[in-house]
């Protein structure tokens, strides 16, 4: 069949393209140009980064057409800007979810349909299983590379059309071996790390650049407003962190934690960690923008939920709400971070998920 492969220029998606080509499919490669790192390139210089060149080299070598898609403005609006907004609100966003949801599985997938492709494949580590009621999403065989948490927002319609050939491979070494076997020169290329559009790894600097109004130092205070110290910028803090508080811990005589961020007044509010965790602990968590991959019953679904990218499952009952939200009743209390995803699992299967809303317990 004619199948579009979303190619990042990395090993994973290159192997996907090569595998599909070897299986005899009509492969079309596409690489999204998401941003221009602007370090190496001067204004007006060519936009093509190393990754685009790599993806194109793989396509040329294997003999299938490859296209570079300009998604820069869409990525800026739908991912980077909302990432900055979310941070400026004191949340901890998950930009990869927004990117998969918008630029990749809406725009690029729409393009694949327009080109008459029967499916679109990516190098994500997640398994798609053909179930009785349509396609299901499952955790991959290689648990270390599980990306299911980042893909919960994939709609059922999108899932029908998508293919994830790497969901079944045992481990990354296997993928690299495949790359070598297929003669791909990028077999030894390092994995991409962290948030792709933050090359230096300092998202705080990026947020401050995009939202200069929140830039600048300010006070660290306790719940009563007593000044305990100073900080270098609110973008460097998230609720729940104990790092970057300097010698405040020793000053107060107890380990402290960020409990709130007052962005307009550029204040970081802290409290004793043990007490704060107790206060923040909740059994009830509200979610917005729910995506269900099953027909959820109004009475609720008993399942496991994962509220951070790398964390164990927690037992819960999740009930859908009118307007696209949901309410999670946890068996054991936890401290969810606003803006993060809460993903629902039944064994290896992803049932759906939503974004954690700040507020009432």
């Amino acid at each position, binding site marked *: 069949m004619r199948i579009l492969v979303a190619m990042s220029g990395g090993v994973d998606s290159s192997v996907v393209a090569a595998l599909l080509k070897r299986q005899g499919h009509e492969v079309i490669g596409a690489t999204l*140009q998401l941003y221009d790192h602007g370090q190496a390139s001067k204004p007006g210089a*060519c936009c*093509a980064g190393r990754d*685009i060149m790599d993806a194109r080299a793989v396509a040329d070598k294997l003999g299938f*057409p490859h296209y570079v*898609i300009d998604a820069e403005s869409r990525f800026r609006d739908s991912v980077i800007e909302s990432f900055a907004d979310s941070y400026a609100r004191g949340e901890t966003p998950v930009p990869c979810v927004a990117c998969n949801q918008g630029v990749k599985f809406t725009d690029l997938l729409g393009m694949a349909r327009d*080109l008459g492709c029967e499916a679109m494949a990516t190098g994500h580590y997640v398994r798609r299983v053909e179930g009785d009621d349509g396609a299901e999403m499952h955790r991959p065989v290689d648990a270390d590379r599980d990306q299911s948490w980042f893909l919960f927002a994939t709609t059922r319609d999108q899932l029908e059309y998508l293919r994830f050939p790497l969901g079944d491979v045992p481990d990354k070494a296997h993928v690299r071996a495949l790359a070598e076997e297929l003669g791909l020169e990028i077999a030894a290329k390092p994995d991409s790390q962290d948030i792709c559009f933050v090359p230096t790894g300092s998202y705080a600097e990026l947020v401050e650049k995009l939202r200069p109004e929140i830039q600048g130092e300010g006070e660290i205070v306790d719940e009563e407003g007593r000044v305990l110290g100073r900080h270098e910028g609110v973008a460097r803090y998230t609720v729940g962190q104990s790092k970057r508080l300097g010698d405040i811990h020793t000053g107060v005589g107890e380990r402290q934690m960020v409990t709130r961020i007052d962005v307009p007044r550029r204040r970081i509010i802290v409290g004793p960690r043990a007490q704060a965790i107790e206060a923040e602990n909740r059994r009830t968590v509200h979610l917005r923008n729910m995506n269900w991959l099953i027909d959820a019953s109004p009475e609720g679904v008993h399942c496991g939920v994962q509220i951070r990218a790398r964390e164990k499952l927690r037992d819960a009952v999740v009930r859908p709400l009118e307007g696209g939200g949901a309410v999670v009743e946890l068996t054991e209390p936890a401290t969810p971070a606003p803006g993060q995803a809460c993903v629902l699992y039944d064994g290896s299967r992803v049932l759906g998920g939503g974004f954690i809303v700040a507020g009432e317990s």
Partner: protein
Amino acid sequence: MNEALKTTYLDANATEPLRPAARQAVLDGMMLSGNPSSVHADGREARRFLEEARNRISAGFGRISGTCVFTSGGTEADAMAIHAFGRSRPVLIGGTEHDAIRKAAPDAEVLGVDRFGLLDPEDLRQRLHQIGPALVCVMSANNETGVLSPLQDIEAVCRDSGSHLHVDAVQGAGRVPFTLSECSVAISGHKMGGPKGAGALLMQNEDPIDALTIGGGQERGRRGGTQPLPAILGMAAAFEESRRQDWVRIDVLREQVEQAALECGARVAGRGVPRLPNTSCLILDGVSAQIQLMTLDLGGFCVSAGSACSSGKVSSSHVLTAMGETEGASQAIRVSLPWNVEEDHVVAFCKAYREMAARLKKQ
């Protein structure tokens, strides 16, 4: 038609297929072992061919051979002109100029164009009256739309104000007659059906210029570096072939393309004003240029979208934006018929275009 790839090539403005006469000239040129700068017999032989090519190209522009400086291509010729003539005076460029001009004169004042892409010579006159003598850069024919600039009037305006006119004739040379004498002209061999690697800057006189490269003082000190003789001989042959071409035949086929596109609800940028005989800029509202390009490519048709950078990424067209298009600037493809196009190719393209439009055009 590329027999090996089974494609239909309709992207002449990116590069014309090699003309047989040019191919022969290149092969002959490669057999000349001498360096045109050498004093010995082999060098003299090479120089004789080089100067003969210079004569033929200069004559085609009604100039003496000393005005012609060979370059690596159009971009270098444009950069050379801006470097030589734009340093001590303000630079004005047309709103639809190619990046070869735009990027070589990043601080230039950009002159507006109307919805056909035409610059108004009266606007230019007024502006020059305000700022005094300038370097004015205007292309003879636009690479995306094929629209021809009103060069006669622009030349007169520049003459009256004591300004230097530089014409980027990369697309126009060989395809439309060129009669101006009071300007410098940039041309490119491969856009006329020669090989890639040679171009020329034709100047108004034989005066020295401030060279970009000095090197061994070739081209009378105006452009250092050994001349690519085979490519230059190919360019001279291609230029002459191009001028002898039956462009009416091409124009008739081009009209077939445009009629088919218009019937599909497309718009043709610049239709209604004088244009190159081979170029059509087809705007299919609501369908991205990227998708059109990919669809046609997968169907075996080589066309292009106005502005593709070297990564292959398709951006919106600054030419169409200057002509007042908004969404349309990223929904246009360029079809440019090559010298060897056949009616079969055009018929096949029209069929593919109709199918594409029927499938993708949102009602």
